[in-house]
């Protein structure tokens, strides 16, 4: 299982990457593995306001429906429209082409409170 060192994580298996002031969000390798083949993704709209831990979207696989939660609160400034037609990118490249959206945080401190790679790894192994 791949857990990149330079990312932050949530206990709900989202990853977050700080890019200048914005935060790119996706699902972890552990999450995509557990979901199985992703066949549909519901993304937020650009401009939507999200709160930390609140609903960000939905991913559906051949076997289940799962909620995605916002790692940080803020405004959605970009979404990965390619996932609409190719949601399998979440499986094939969870930390790259499978990204979900970019959030402009309203409270920058929230990113720092996310779990680091070592913490996430131990969480998935417990």
């Amino acid at each position, binding site marked *: 299982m791949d857990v990149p060192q330079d990312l932050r994580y949530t206990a709900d298996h989202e990853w977050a990457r700080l890019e200048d002031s914005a935060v790119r969000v996706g699902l972890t390798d552990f999450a995509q593995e557990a979901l*199985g*083949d992703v*066949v*549909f993704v*519901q993304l937020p709209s650009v401009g939507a306001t999200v709160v930390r831990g609140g609903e960000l979207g939905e991913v*559906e696989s*051949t*076997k289940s429906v799962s909620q995605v939660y916002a790692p940080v609160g803020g405004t959605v400034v970009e979404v990965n429209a390619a996932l609409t037609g190719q*949601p*399998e990118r979440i499986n094939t490249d969870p930390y790259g082409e499978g990204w979900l959206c970019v959030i402009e945080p309203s409270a920058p401190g929230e990113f720092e409170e996310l779990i680091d790679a070592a913490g996430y790894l131990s969480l998935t192994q417990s």
Partner: protein
Amino acid sequence: MTLKHSTLHTEHLELGARLVDFGGWEMPLSYPDGTIAEHLACRNDAAVFDVSHLGTVRVEGPDSFELLQTSLTNDLNRIGPGRAQYQHLLDETDASVLDDIIVWWVAKERFDVMPNASNTARVISVLGGQDVTGERAVIAVQGPRARERLATVSPEAAAVGHFMVADFEFKGVSCRVAGTGYTGEDGVECAVPSEKAPDFWRAVVGAGVKPAGLGARDTLRLESGLPLHGHELGAGITPLQAGLGWVVSWDKGPFRGREALERERASGIRRRLRGLLAEGRRPPRRGDAVVFDGEALGVVTSGNFSPVLQRGIALAFVPPPTAMGDKVEIALRGSQVGAIVVKPPFQHLKLEGAIS
């Protein structure tokens, strides 16, 4: 509760299978390539499924024919020894389908009855017979190239005709094969004694047949419009509601549940199972409402993503007047998605013009 394991459990673990509890058995849900790859392998080439969780109940003796003929809905006189038949076992009082079953007519006074995993005890309570489920593995080899690939392992098994039953030998043990399956593709199901089942499985996989789990088995059967007991069949659901009137032989005389089913036939069914093709990829799910002109009049019994069509598909109970081509909406977790009433198998539908 302790989960039962197939005799192929070690093989599944070695292949990296993700396991799932199904009807009291821990069975492969998928292998590392995933459900969709397994599904497409079965549609385009060949896939192999461990379906050892299906029951095998051996019913034999001079009364066995009459017992099955009066207990089950279909007419055994339409077939004969060496053939297989799809059957329903009905509830006496309301004609609910207690189980849907494939009967392998092995010899004149000998039948191998194959119930669903969780219904084996129920079937035995009606038919009696001996539960031989634990003595064998059942290995389904399915797909357009299934026979060609299986022929390198066992030409005899690969040669069994559609809905025919035959014995064959593998490494010195006697096995049984039927030209049946649950994928909508050509193929066979092989009952192999436990001691040789791992060898047989390995040989089939070695012949280039892709291992596939229950996830793909479910998407394949749904895409082909085949019912799953507990979803499209079960308590309160009759063969007529499920659109499976052909499984009921009205001209064979008495059978269990016949009177109740006759009453429904006379009064008319209150709902009918139909296929729904959704507008987009989002999978409908069991329990989603089917909305007709703003009124929720139907319900999804099974829904998922069709890997062939790349669309959401479903089986649903709808009011009987519903016709092919009718437009409906499916209430999908807060949003409504357009869908069209279609006749499965879904994988053969031509999408152009199906949804405007």
